[in-house]
């Protein structure tokens, strides 16, 4: 693979990651968000695959398959089951989409500023993509704060996790299979547990709006 193609592919996958995150911030429909999350998972898997192809390591390709299976197929499926079980899939965010998008843009800028010392003035495409991972983490956090529904919280959490994974893959040029396996299992477990809790919330309180949970303090 030529270096320029490698750089372009890295930029493409990383750009897709950021774009899907921004779209998730913009969209109110939970179904659309889950679909975007699946696309994000594909982009992440693609990123890992490109890295593996470039480094010529079969292990990374395996990791990319794992990522593809988990983040692009299994988790979105689990989430969409939850979303589909009840009709109302409209999120009413605490912040309107315009303001959220402005915040997302600011956070992306912050990510670039923070990463300046690491990037330096290298032309290495992986280093140049690291800020996108950080931006993903921050945007995931933003989603956690501004969304009310439990399912949206899960989506925010997964965006955050995608960001962490992106940074890990880019800075360490791939992660050993065993480590990725462990991390993926963690995420899967967290999502399943939260899924169960969300179901219980639905049954107990008739809704999954987190604002209704403020009575549970002390």
């Amino acid at each position, binding site marked *: 693979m030529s270096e320029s193609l490698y750089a372009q592919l890295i930029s493409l996958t990383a750009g897709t990651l950021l774009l899907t995150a921004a779209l998730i911030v913009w969209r109110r429909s939970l179904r659309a968000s889950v679909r975007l999350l699946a696309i994000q998972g594909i982009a992440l898997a693609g990123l890992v695959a490109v890295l593996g192809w470039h480094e010529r390591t079969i292990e990374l390709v395996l990791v990319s398959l794992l990522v593809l299976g988990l983040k692009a197929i299994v988790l979105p499926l689990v989430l969409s089951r939850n979303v589909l079980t009840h009709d109302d899939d409209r999120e009413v965010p605490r912040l309107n989409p315009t303001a959220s998008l402005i915040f997302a843009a600011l956070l992306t800028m*912050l990510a670039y500023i923070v990463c300046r010392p690491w990037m330096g003035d290298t032309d290495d495409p992986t280093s140049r993509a690291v800020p996108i991972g950080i931006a993903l983490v*921050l945007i995931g956090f933003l989603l956690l*704060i501004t969304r009310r529904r439990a399912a949206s919280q899960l989506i925010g959490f997964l965006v955050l996790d995608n960001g962490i994974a992106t940074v890990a893959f880019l800075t360490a040029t791939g992660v050993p299979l065993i480590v990725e396996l462990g991390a993926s299992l963690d995420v899967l477990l967290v999502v399943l547990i939260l899924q169960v809790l969300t179901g219980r919330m639905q049954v107990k309180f008739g809704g999954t709006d*987190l*604002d209704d949970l403020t009575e549970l*303090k002390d």
Partner: protein
Amino acid sequence: MNPLEGALTAELLIAALACIVAALSPASMRRYLAGVATLAMAASGIVAGGFALSGHTGTLSAPTALPAVDLTLAPDRLGGVFIVIASAVTLLAALYAIGYVHGSADSRSAWLAFIIFTLGLQMVPAAGDVITFLLAWELMALGSGVLVLTDHRTRPQARSAALWYAVMTQLSFLLLLAGFAVLATATGSTTFDALVTVSPTSTTGALAFILLTLGFATKAGLVPLHIWLPRAHPEAPSHASAVMSAAMVKMGVYGTLLVVLRFMPGGPAWWGIVLLVLGGISAVYGILQASVTSDVKRLLAYSTTENIGLIFLAIGASVLLAAYGITAASQAALLAALLLAISHAAFKCSLFLGAGAIVHATGERNLDRLGGLGVRMPWTAAAFGVAALGAAALPVTSGFVAEWTLFQSFIHGATRDAIPLAVALPVAVAVVALTAGLALVTFVKLYGIGFLARPRSTGADDAHEVSHPMRWAALIGAAAVIALGVFPGPIAQVLASAVGIGDVATIGFGGLSLPSLGVLLDPMALAITALVCALPVVVVSALSARRHPRRATELPWGCGGVRVSPRMQYTATSYAEPLMRVFDDTLRPEQDVVVTHATESRYLVAQVRYRQKLSDVIEVRGYRPLLAFADRLGVVSRRLQNGSLHRYLTYSFVALIVVLVVVSL
């Protein structure tokens, strides 16, 4: 292994054994087995302290999980003095406990707490480095904290007392931790021998002095940090309050001596002034509160604040005099501080044990409901009376010798060359004189109302003498008060050698002589002279009494002079009433007088109800507003935690952003 190390090892082993015995022995045998084991531990402590005091050196160390940090026991001679004090008080308290404990005070946890408490107490002066010192300090705090809670089932105020105690003792610990941290950072080591390199005049030295002094003053119960003392001492079982009052607060004194003698000798004059002021205020305030309170144990607790105040006054005078180069008077003040410490340990131990006997026998702690115990409990009355003489600093007791030495140092230290001295010493003399006068009133009240006159309640009327171990423990304490008062010379010499004062001699019948000041005190000779002088008077009055036999006068109507009811006697409250009037502005009592008039005429009084409530002014004016403020702060800060998940997430998000921004700047 030299004798000192052997004795310390033996003490630790016996303590472990005592813990096992206390935990495993059956309830019916527990007090005997655990009591004897504690006695053995205290005895080995006295031996170890004696070795340290006589100049033996030795080091016991144990490695810890941290590299290069060992726990070290290496008592020096000053430490030896305090090990002996702590062990001797523990010995008497354990002996007393064998006869005294019952119910919750005889439980497994109470015995374990007592053993751990007294072990920690004996290890504090033995510690050779900061870590060991603080560890022993916390053991002591932990054990005594549990003991304060002993009666929490029956006395709800024990819980509040334990809370106050825990907070103040942790405050003390934090201050000490900070102070030692300052010293250890400056020297790079935690062993006591390495800490001495800090200069007392440097900023580091000043900071360490302030932090450590405040920490030790909290433990010693000095005003305004005394607030836990009148709460915690009355709540603990009497054998524990005896140890707390007679030995534990002394560790504050030991710590202060450690700072001004061992770590940073030759401190500047302002150190002396700080200690003088702290001690002077505590002495006067403590005895003033003691003189007007009616609760026996609370009275004794306030009197502890007074005595510790006097000890700090003496230490302060010593530092101040040394700073101006007046060595002889400075050394006399230091000797007075140690004599006061030993004397206080003896009489306060005996007084608290006696108070425990009173509570045990009558079920009353309020002096207004006692009386007539002198006839009903003659042994306890004798021990209590002697100890009260000591507390009032009257001749032939240890208190007199100590205050005499203190006065000598003040008088001979007075000079016109240094203005601080010229101002401070006369004021200090006045403070000690006022304190001594008030102490006399207080202990006349305590003994007179409690043991003389007629019983004021059925509890006091039904009182009976307590068991032999309790009796003997109080009597031994009283004997020590007399022994220290009659033969002060040898004891003063031992104490002087412990702090490196050479200029003390024994004279006459065990009398005390300070050659460099040119003064001497021989209590035995004085007592013999007084006897010789008094003998003719006694003989003459006895003879004349025989010649004129007393006529019995039976008045049909006693002119109010015949006391038909015990309620017509003076009570503790009425005895202290003049003092209450004089010091009204300081004490600020709450008084209610409700007069009920007869229905026939409003000029006739049917009933007068008088109620008086005394609260600690410092607590009401100083601590309550502080606590209220903390409460308000707590209520306001609850808004931070309103239960919203989003808000909590926002906190961490904002924190993350701030960190990122700071990193990228």
